[in-house]
Each structure stands twice: as C-alpha cells, then as structure tokens.
C-alpha cells in the first residue's frame, strides 16, 4: 500500500481576523488538540476574539490551499534582554498533514524572523512522541536542548516535551 501525496499549491500570508472560522476548523480536525496545548470543547467565540484582538507581541502566519486556511503558525516575540528570541507554535489541519504545509510555514517563519526581525534564537516545545513534527523542525536546523518532564496534561497523562531551538550567531 502506498500513500498518494499530491503536491499542493500553498500560499503563506499574514493571519487576518476573517480567518477565524478556518482556524477553528483546524483545531477541530485530526489530532490537533492532542499534539498542542489546546483544549477540547473550546469556544469558537474565543478564537474569533483572539484573532480580532491580537496581542502586540504576537505575529501570525497562515498557509492557504485553494482559498482555505489549512495551517497556522504563531510567533511570540520576547522583549528586553530576550528580544533576540521568538517562540514558535504551529498546527496543520488533519486532512492536510504530510503535504508540505508545515514546511511552507516554517520557511516563511525563518525568513521573517531572521532576515527581517534580527531574531537569532527561535525556540519551541514539542511532545517527545510527535515524530513527524520533530523531523520537520530538525530539517530547519532546530536542535533538542532538553526534555521537559511532565510538561503538560494530555488525555489523562502528564507527558514530556522537548525544548528545541534554532540558533544563529
């Protein structure tokens, strides 16, 4: 049995308030809740409110396929003595995983932060058993800096995360 992988035509752009319904659909899809810090039974109103009133220290990117937002990447910009650092989080719709959406978002995030914002440390946390995500981050030069024990509660169990970072001089 082989898996058919169709190359997608992916557009990456900044997130807009109007994207909130597609973003809610991403969170409802596949195992997105499982692999992130999102909660089940989340409020769609809260997602809309967050996209309509984005915090000043956040930058959001989305990946669009056929007019639908199928991936979201958020960057949290640190301030003061950590202003060279940004934290990254992303999620891809369950029906569009393993088809280059994450790669397109990561390419844009690295270009934006390093070539336009002078970020020299990009960091993220990922559950230690999320092999596809870890492989994607390693492809972009992220290295595991350590294991954070009992990092988060996931479906009744406290599970570990890796702290990963991509560092430029």
């Amino acid at each position, binding site marked *: 049995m082989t898996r058919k992988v169709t190359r997608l035509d992916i557009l990456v752009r900044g997130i807009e308030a109007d994207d909130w319904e597609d973003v809610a659909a991403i969170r409802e899809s596949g195992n997105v809740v499982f692999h992130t*810090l999102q*909660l089940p039974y989340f409020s769609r109103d809260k997602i809309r409110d967050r996209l309509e009133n984005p915090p000043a220290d956040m930058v959001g990117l989305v990946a669009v396929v056929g007019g639908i937002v199928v991936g979201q990447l958020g960057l949290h910009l640190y301030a*003061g*003595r*950590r202003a*060279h*650092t940004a934290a990254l989080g992303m999620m891809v719709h369950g029906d569009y995983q393993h088809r280059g959406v994450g790669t397109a978002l990561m390419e844009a995030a690295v270009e934006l932060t390093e070539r336009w914002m002078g970020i*020299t*440390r990009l*960091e993220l946390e990922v559950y230690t058993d999320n092999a596809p995500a870890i492989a994607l981050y390693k492809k972009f030069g992220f290295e595991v*800096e*350590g*294991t*954070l*024990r*009992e*990092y*988060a*509660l*996931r479906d*009744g*169990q*406290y599970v570990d995360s890796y*702290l990963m*970072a991509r*560092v430029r001089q």
Partner: protein
Amino acid sequence: MTDFPTLTLRGLRADDWMALQPIVASETGLHDALDVPYASEEAFRERLTNPPAGTHTLVAELMLPSGRERVVGLAWLRVMVAPRRRHTATLQIVVHADYRAGEIEEAILRAALDLTDNWLALRRVEMRLFADDNARAEMLARHGFVQEAVMRRYAVRAGEVVDGWLLARLRPVGAQAPAAGKGGA
C-alpha cells in the same frame, strides 16, 4: 532580644516595592535576572502590586539585633495560565547581594516549595538561570531540581549573549497527593 537576625517570610505589603526595587535594580539583581538598567520605579511598583493572575509573591525580611527590619529578597511564583499546564509554576528568586546563594536564599526557596508542594499541589516547578550560576544550581539540586536543558543564546547580560539553564523539580512522591480521579493511570 536575640543577638542574631531572625528571618521572616511573609506575603507582600503595599510599600515593599521601595525596599525591593533597589535590590532588583542592583548589579547583582541585573546579573541574576532579566531586568534592564534604568527601568522606571513606577513600572516596578506596578509589576509588584498588580501581577498577573496566578502570581504568588513571598518577601524575606530580617529582624536585625537593633530591632530594625530589613527586606532582603523576594520570590515570584507564577502558576501557568494554559489549562493543560496548570500543574506547573515558574519560580524566580531575587536576593540582596549580601545574601546571594546563602542561607537566606535557601530559606526563601524552602518557603516557595512548601507553597507549591503542600498548598498548591503543583507537580512541576521550573527555574531559569544563567549557565554560569553554579552556586545557585548546586543549591537547587539539594532541593530536587534537575537540569533539563541548556538554552543557547538565552539572554543578553552586560554586553554578551549568555546561555541559560532550565531546571525543574517534580513534586516528591512523599508529598501529600491530591485525591486521585477515577480511571487514573
């Protein structure tokens, strides 16, 4: 009256900011934490007295043999807001240069861990240090902290970008456990 200073750990009082601001803004304070020089006193007062929800502030005060009280340090414990991380808090301790990594800092740490273990029932406490802070790392190791990560290029300190250590302590097995939910692992 005792001949030795006695230490009290207590909650925050409205006027503590006046004694704590010079400690945080001192050379030692800037070396150990992430504050910047030339910060506004008003901003510090605001940060201390109107902290984010889930912040617990402990203040260490010495009663000197003369009968004078002296505020010498503080601990900030911040419980994570993210619902799936509510079992975790980050801890930050700042002490006056005279008492750094000594008994007083250890007493502050002990009080903070009494709070996390026995009153908040948190499973995980995190601390971030600069990666050359061996004295403090040794003290934390005595209290069950384990180094989990080396964070490269963690933060700027006096003209250099310095690595950081992430240390964490999981709640000891002996601590009073909260009632287990049915069907737990």
